[in-house]
């Protein structure tokens, strides 16, 4: 033992010697040449084999040189004057490294909005920028004299990236203003109207916004990473949206160079904003934003019989100590969204512990157990559990699917325990519902699933509840909105987008109770002897608790969820999560309902399966529900394109009365209605899946809007044609609304 410690010490010493030597040798050889090449005003700060980092010590501006292709990435546009569209403050903003959003202290609790400041006007012209050297980089302190902010940012060169970090813990806000958010390097890599290329946005599965597409939306694209903070979003969405799953973004030039950003610290409090060139915007930019405080407007107290809208701000900062974004310059083969996906996958593998754990193509089935419906007995109305699929029926469904030729099935069972699909009290016991057949039938189902070799994921919701009980109080232990109310999770009307009055809102448990609840539940769950579980919300549900005294913000919540998943993994080896937010992915053994499209914003040109490219060959994942999509054939083709397992929502009983419950969106989930379709589609899908399930996607290309080509690492190539006409490409004819698999000879 002692010997080995000694050995390691020795090894360390040798390695560090080598490193120092090599560093010296690098600095001895190159700097002279590089300094000569440096732009006027910039000096070399640091360099390595791949990159060189130059900074202007007066302004705090910098550029990053990618030695492989000689491309220089400037922190702000090289020629800001060529911008003929922006005027005044907005024009000067383009020369800023930071853009801050703030609220004056006196504007709190009245109906007012935030204002913006930037480093060019408020620090360079009317304040102070001090630059000092640190290891491999610089530290820039921006003093916004007028606003009272002092914001330190470090820029550090690492192996193949530049890390920009806002040191939030050393940030000084001053007294007159609240800092709401900081846009970090909003014009880093900005493209002009002369450039050709696209911005990559991780919306849903991923999307491409071409430079200068002239879309000019009424509001610029800005979205929180990992979805809305449910702690304060309480309005129904007018349009359906997909979330940002991974904290990444990128700018790609058709000339073969790209800049990719990964938010590595403070991602839970980050947002990504995108602007494309139009008659109102000159530069094409994508950047990330750090949240410092939560600013929200909401209806508050009654005044003169009406609710009054006020803006509120959280009094403790968001909790991000350091907000760090890595910028990777890419070139050649890597300079596109495929390269970014590879890079992000490597990041997940090396730093987050993503392991290769592929599974053969499966049919995913989400079975619904029981749901509460309103009933009345002799005039007294009450909620009763309505059986949708009991354990016996589920066993039969598995058997029938087995007989129909489905070799691999991944069954999630939703609403099998305690209160059914939606928790009334927080989950504590793992008691199979009596009404579904009780423990005996449940264990039979478990045994049959094991016998067939099917994946079986009983679903547990450890996040939401409606009533106090099981040691968790509704008032005390629930997450609160910024105005102090329980952060109610409503079901919204699809017509009016207003909360549905006849359905009780649900509460979220405060994130710091999450571990306790999980531990308690898991102890009971383990007794059922199942080595897999589905914790849907762990993958798509991240929120803050804005309680005045014991607030927990998203940055902290993310840690809690990760700890929760870690602890679950020690007890249960397979965990399925839903949606697949980046932080949860490394713990998952299956991701359910991974979006196969983006939200389709006007600024997007087409969708790209970025998320799937990251995950394929590493983790199995499934599509959103086939039956509830806008077309079965389209969804099937999407599954083929993205390598996703098809998912069917399943109800054993007839579904008609579902229209009066929370599950009214599950029309046509009756097993008998889709069994044959599912078997047919699975048969087709699995023939392809068998070939590629453990390979990575190497290159996905949109040949045209309706035609995509996907190349796997084992050289299997898939062409998918979404158009109504047959298309010939690479000498291969792909039929209308069909696909073609080309195998290497």
């Amino acid at each position, binding site marked *: 033992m002692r010997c080995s410690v000694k050995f390691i010490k020795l090894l360390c010493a040798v390695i560090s010697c080598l490193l120092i030597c090599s560093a010296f040798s690098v600095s001895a050889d190159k700097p002279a040449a590089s300094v000569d090449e440096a732009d006027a005003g910039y000096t070399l700060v640091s360099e390595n084999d791949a990159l060189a980092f130059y900074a202007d010590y007066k302004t705090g501006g910098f550029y990053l040189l990618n030695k492989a292709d000689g491309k220089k990435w400037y922190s702000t546009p090289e020629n800001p004057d060529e911008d003929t569209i922006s005027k005044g403050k907005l024009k000067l903003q383009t020369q800023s490294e930071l853009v801050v959003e703030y609220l004056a202290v006196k504007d709190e609790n009245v109906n007012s909005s935030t204002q913006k400041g930037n480093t060019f006007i408020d620090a360079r012209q009317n304040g102070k920028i001090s630059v000092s050297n640190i290891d491999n980089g610089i530290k820039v302190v921006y003093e916004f004299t007028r606003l009272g902010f002092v914001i330190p940012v470090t820029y550090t060169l690492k192996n193949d990236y530049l890390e920009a970090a806002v040191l939030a813990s050393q940030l000084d806000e001053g007294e007159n203003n609240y800092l709401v958010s900081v846009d970090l390097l909003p014009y880093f890599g900005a493209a002009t109207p002369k450039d050709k290329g696209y911005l990559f946005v991780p919306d*849903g599965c991923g*999307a491409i916004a071409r430079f200068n*597409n*002239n879309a000019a939306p*009424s*509001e610029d*694209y800005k979205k929180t990473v990992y979805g809305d903070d449910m702690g304060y979003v309480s309005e129904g969405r*007018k*349009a*359906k949206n997909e979330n940002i799953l991974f904290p990444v973004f990128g700018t790609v030039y058709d000339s073969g160079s790209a800049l990719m950003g990964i938010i590595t610290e403070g991602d839970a409090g980050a947002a990504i904003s995108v602007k494309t060139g139009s008659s109102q915007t000159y530069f094409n930019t994508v950047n990330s934003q750090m949240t410092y405080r939560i600013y929200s407007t909401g209806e*508050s*107290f*009654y005044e003169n019989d009406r609710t009054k809208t006020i803006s*509120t701000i959280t009094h403790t900062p968001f909790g991000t100590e350091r907000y760090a974004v890595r910028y990777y310059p890419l070139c050649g083969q890597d300079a596109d969204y495929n390269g970014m996906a590879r890079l992000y996958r490597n990041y997940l593998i090396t730093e987050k512990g993503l392991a290769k754990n592929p599974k053969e193509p499966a049919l995913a089935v989400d079975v619904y157990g029981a749901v509460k*419906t*309103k*009933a*009345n007995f*002799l*005039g007294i109305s009450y909620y009763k559990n309505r059986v949708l699929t009991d354990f016996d029926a589920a066993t039969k469904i598995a058997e029938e699917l087995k007989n129909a030729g489905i070799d691999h099935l991944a069954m999630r069972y939703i609403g099998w325990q305690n209160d059914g699909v939606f928790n009334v009290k927080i989950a504590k016991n793992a008691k199979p519902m009596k009404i579904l057949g009780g423990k005996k039938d449940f264990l039979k189902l478990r045994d049959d699933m094991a016998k067939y070799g099917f994946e079986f994921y009983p679903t547990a919701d450890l996040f939401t509840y409606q009533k106090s009980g099981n040691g968790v109080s509704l008032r005390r232990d629930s997450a609160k909105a910024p*105005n*102090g*109310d329980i952060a109610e999770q409503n079901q919204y*009307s*699809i*017509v*009016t*987008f*207003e909360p549905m009055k006849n359905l009780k809102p649900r509460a979220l448990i405060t994130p710091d109770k999450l571990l306790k609840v999980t531990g308690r539940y898991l102890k009971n769950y383990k007794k059922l002897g199942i080595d897999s579980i589905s914790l849907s919300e762990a993958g798509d549900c991240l929120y803050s608790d804005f309680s*005045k005294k014991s607030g927990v913000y998203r940055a902290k919540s993310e840690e809690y969820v990760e700890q929760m998943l870690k602890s679950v993994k020690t007890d249960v080896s397979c965990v399925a999560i839903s949606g697949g937010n980046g932080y949860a992915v490394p713990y998952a053994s299956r991701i359910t309902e991974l979006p196969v499209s983006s*939200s*389709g*914003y*006007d600024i*997007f*040109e*087409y*969708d790209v399966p970025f998320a799937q490219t990251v995950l394929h060959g590493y983790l199995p994942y499934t599509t959103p529900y086939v039956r*509830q*999509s*806008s*077309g*079965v054939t*389209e969804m099937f083709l999407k599954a083929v394109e993205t390598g996703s397992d098809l998912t069917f929502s399943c109800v054993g009983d*007839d*579904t*008609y009365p*579902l229209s*009066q419950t929370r599950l*009214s*969106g599950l*029309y*046509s989930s*009756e097993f008998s*209605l889709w069994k044959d379709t599912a078997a047919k589609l699975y048969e087709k899908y699995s023939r392809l899946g068998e070939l590629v399930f453990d390979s990575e996607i190497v290159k996905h290309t949109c*040949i*045209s*809007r*309706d035609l995509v080509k996907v190349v796997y690492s084992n050289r299997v190539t898939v062409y998918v044609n*979404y158009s109504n006409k047959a298309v010939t490409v690479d000498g291969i004819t792909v039929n209308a609304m069909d696909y073609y698999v080309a195998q290497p000879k």
Partner: protein
Amino acid sequence: MKRLLSVLSAALVLCTLFTVTVNAVSYAPYNSYEYNEFDEAVDAPVGYAVTKVINTASLKLEKQIDSPQDIVVKNGKIYLLDSGNSRILVLNESFELISVLENFTISKSLASKKGVALTDGFVSFAGAEGIAIGDNGEVYIADTLNNRVLCADGKLEIKNVILRPDDRLNDTDASFSPGAVEVDDKGWIYVASKTISLGVMVFDEQGEFRQFFGANTILSATEAIVKFFREAFLSVTQLDYVEQKTPVTIQKMDFDDKGFLYTVSPYDDWHVKATESGLIKKLNFEGKDILDSEIVFGDVELGEEKTWFCDVDVDDNGFVNMMDNARGRIFQYLDDGTLISVFGTLGDQVGCFSYAEAVESIGDTVLAVDSVKNCIFVFTPTEYGKAVRNAVLLMENNDLEGSKAIWNGLLEQNSNSQLYYKGLGRIADYGGDYKTAMKYYKLAYAQDEYALAFKQQRQLFVEKNIVWILIVLVTALAGVALLIRFVKRRSVAAEGAYSKMEQKYTIEFYALFHPLDAFSQFKLRNIASVGLSAIIVAVWFFAKIFEYGCTGFAFDINREADFSLFTTVLVTVGLFVIFVASNWAFCTLIDGKGTLKDIIATTAYSLIPYITTRIIAVILTNVLVPSESVFIEIVTAIGILWSFTVLLLGMLSIHEFSVSKTVFSLLFTLLGMVIILFLGVLIFSLIRQIANFVLSVYKEVIFRM
């Protein structure tokens, strides 16, 4: 060489493909729904999705499209009014630009005659809101800002200019600002002016004014009454402050292929609370609306915004597309009010509107113009949408056998829909399988159809079981006769004594036939029973529940979940208590002799016939159909009359009133009940206000803490 060429051509193809800015295909950023019998929205699969976006980039135009206002499809060509640029873009069916109609000319004489000013030698119509295209490519432009309608031939020369027909508009000084123009097959021009509410103005092919057509009516009946009272009570100066009501103007129009003119009118009033019928009209040749006046188009579940139709379009198959500007939705209906699909919403996504402006269709494809996004969204039916349209058309043509498979297929895709259950019901019905038909109709909440199928089924049942039915009927009649005899016998009493029917717990039945005698015994023998009364009221309460749960489907649709215990208690026990309280309070004032106990018992006992007949009526609703409901009405009427008579005589005898005084006291009892209810409502709303106050104080405290 050949290979090089092919590579080059491939590259060219790729280039063109990439320069066309068209967005993602299959993602529909909105929920689709339909309305059930209870006006609740129910999720439904998406029927239409955007497959293409037509904008400046996709048409490769140099000048940006600016505020497009109208779109017309004629002879396979799509005409888009690019209003801001004073031009019309013409596209073919594959949405490629084939020509741009701009630089319209005009002869000098016509220009000076009609006062048309030229810009750069051409006629500008910037800000125009509507166009129409004639059979031979004539262009009609509703040049809104210039107060005229331009009529040009296919060669871009303006042949006629329609100005305000002053001699026909003597009564009004409203300006002539045409917002929409249509042309019929005779070449007559229909113009809807934004400020003139006398109807669509019809001009002949020479541009001469002919008539007003299809005006909206001025006042509804209630509004007329309100107006009458206003004028009666308000002074002249006050009246000046009251908003003068004029009928709404017609906003947009579209001819269907049979020559009917669909018109759409906006709301005239911000305070209209609900979506109304009559905003969409289908005008016949006389200008009469031939749509069923019961049909309400648009959203019936309302939030802060109401449906605000801004355009209407009829496609080749008779499906009507209506565009809702307020929520950015397009509703597709059959003109009998059957909702086919709802699609679109507001937002920055493809398929979401910033400002929905105009709608038009080409085949089953719907073209929707957004005047802020400056684009056309091409909505095409999804697999589901296509199937629904097919099925409905087959059903319209009475092709029942052909549509059965389709209806079943649809049910597979959307088991929430009532439409399909109705369709399946109809198929079973026509096939003579009434039992199945009834089942489907019930699921579809189709009462009328259910009643007819039920009648057929009943016919079959009666034919089959006539003997048994007769036996049951005879037995029942005999039973009733025996019962009457039994009661009569027990009502006979020995001299000086009371019969067995005049005891404490039997007197209520005796009272039904001898009210005066029975109720006068209350005082003498103290046999009024509060307990028994309570039982009767309880029976009334349960009868109400029975009525709710067991009324025949053909008569009333009552869903278990909608049952309200509160209302049921209120209309039975509550009503009883209020009546007794009111009667007691009032009759004590006017020296009524009845005690509270007497009043309770009298009221309760007299309810027996009413309750009994209600129960019988409920049973009858399960045997009869609504067309035979006269029997039920007779039974109910007997019950009410009987109960009322017993009550009247009862009150008369316990209070020892004269007949007129009893009637008088009952009237005042009713008045008292109204007062009690009023006070109740007042207290209730007061409590609610206090609760709101406390809640907001609490919220404020929590917030400030």
